[in-house]
């Protein structure tokens, strides 16, 4: 069923009794041309673009829990492309272009709202970095501008821009095309569109081993039996090292808990997205009225999908420093997601030493914004057995050659 105003009206007239599930729940087949491990936004997008752009139809997405239940549903939903280095900014900008047409393309409202993202500067060095990044963005054709404190005050009156603040705001970068999207809808939209093209989405199916023969991947063993496949694409975020270990591969990633918070719902008070590197927090307001808040990772390696109290405290301190008006707002919910952090804070989207095996990992704290672009380049890599120009710099062997893309601290936010 195509979603439209007409289908909405028709279903309203029949008292909404005839809505169909948005995707099937098929039993796994014994063999697929390609298997995608991980049913988050990135995995579902990969399957969708494999089917749509590369004509592969015999594909399965294997998800150990439920789709979109990992980091896809545990982030602060911010979408932007104002990265410093050319390799990174072109990849995120490809994603931004896909975001701009995504709801139409998927026939599913992902509620992409280009409400702008401000990255605040609190020191002279912050402002020099911002000028450099805005210049670099413009040279790469990405919209970016510098705004002065009085303009920020006019745009966001509740933000504490007083010169007597502990960390006074000296200015900001602004990307007007940036914004937020509804993260659950992104997973569901990609799942529904991929399912329509014949992709099997198999939930409650955990991969326990990667089968290989003579340096070639032959399939996966799962909690629901053996599934043969010519190609296996792994995109499992925090569990990348666990899956790599099954294939005898070591990765340069470490998994850390990263928390996100939402407050009780309030009337509209914040129409844009604010990020601060120095005070270290980011905040926006969802369409339901909740403040959506995030900050830094826990320092230690962890797979526990929960974060520590001192991190919660630091996050709230940062938000209250920026917005004293929110000091008595109560937090409603809190999650921990497990993020796989690369030494250069850039992803690995790459062929692996095992033939037919591909990994898409290392997105660290910033994977959500890349969801469509990540799936698009990963699908190309799997289908053509070679990376697209956009993700060629993000190969695993950059850690041997030294061609790192150092976005740590450069990418408009501390990681």
């Amino acid at each position: 069923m195509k979603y439209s105003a007409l289908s909405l009206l028709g279903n309203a007239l029949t008292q909404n009794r005839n809505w169909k599930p948005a995707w099937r729940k098929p039993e796994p087949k014994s063999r697929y041309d390609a298997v995608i491990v991980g049913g988050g936004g990135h995995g579902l997008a990969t399957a969708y673009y494999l089917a749509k752009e590369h004509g592969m139809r015999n594909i399965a997405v294997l998800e150990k829990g439920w789709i979109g239940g990992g980091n896809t549903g545990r982030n602060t939903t911010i979408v932007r492309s104002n990265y410093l280095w050319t390799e990174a900014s072109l990849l995120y900008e490809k994603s931004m272009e896909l975001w701009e047409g995504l709801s139409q393309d998927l026939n599913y409202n992902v509620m992409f709202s280009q409400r702008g993202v401000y990255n605040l500067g609190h020191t002279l060095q912050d402002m020099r970095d911002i000028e450099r990044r805005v210049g670099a963005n413009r040279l790469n054709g990405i919209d970016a501008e510098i705004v002065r404190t009085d303009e920020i005050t006019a745009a966001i009156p509740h933000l504490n821009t007083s010169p007597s603040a502990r960390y006074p705001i000296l200015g900001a970068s602004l990307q007007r095309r940036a914004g937020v999207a509804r993260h659950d809808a992104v997973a569901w939209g990609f799942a529904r569109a991929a399912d329509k093209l014949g992709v099997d989405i198999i939930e409650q199916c955990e991969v326990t081993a990667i089968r290989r023969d003579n340096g070639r991947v032959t399939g996966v063993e799962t909690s629901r039996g053996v599934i043969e496949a010519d190609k296996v694409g792994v995109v499992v975020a925090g569990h990348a090292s666990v899956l790599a270990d099954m294939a005898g591969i070591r990765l340069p990633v470490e998994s850390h808990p990263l928390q996100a918070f939402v407050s009780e719902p309030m009337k509209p008070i914040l129409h844009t997205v604010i990020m601060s590197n120095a005070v270290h927090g980011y905040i926006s307001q969802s369409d339901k009225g909740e403040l959506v808040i995030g900050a830094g990772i826990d320092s230690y390696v962890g797979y526990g999908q929960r974060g520590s109290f001192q991190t919660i405290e630091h996050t709230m301190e940062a938000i209250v420093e920026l917005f004293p008006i929110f000091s008595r707002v109560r937090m409603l919910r809190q999650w921990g997601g497990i993020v796989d952090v690369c030494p250069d804070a850039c992803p690995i989207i790459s062929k692996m030493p095992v033939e037919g095996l591909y990994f898409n990992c290392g997105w660290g704290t910033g994977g959500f914004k890349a969801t469509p672009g990540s799936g698009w380049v990963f699908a190309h890599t799997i289908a053509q057995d070679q990376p697209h120009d956009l993700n060629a710099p993000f190969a695993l062997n950059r850690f041997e050659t030294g061609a790192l893309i150092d976005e740590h601290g450069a990418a408009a936010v501390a990681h």
Partner: protein
Amino acid sequence: MLLIRCPYCGERAETEFSYGGEAGIVRPKDPDALSDAEWADYVFHRKNTKGAYRELWNHALGCRRWFELERDTVTYRFNDDAS
């Protein structure tokens, strides 16, 4: 918050410590003899184990000494047999 047992000072709050990552990584004696792949493995690649993991901690706001503990990276419990 973790309660971390410093072998010199006893149990203290996590906020007194800084994290040193995977334990037992030894700097190669002769880096020039290593291939690029071996050097990358030493510098960048980590076990990142889900489960029992030996780690380095530094009691940064206490005795400032480094020590090693084994912790479960899922339950976050420290294992008793660790020194």
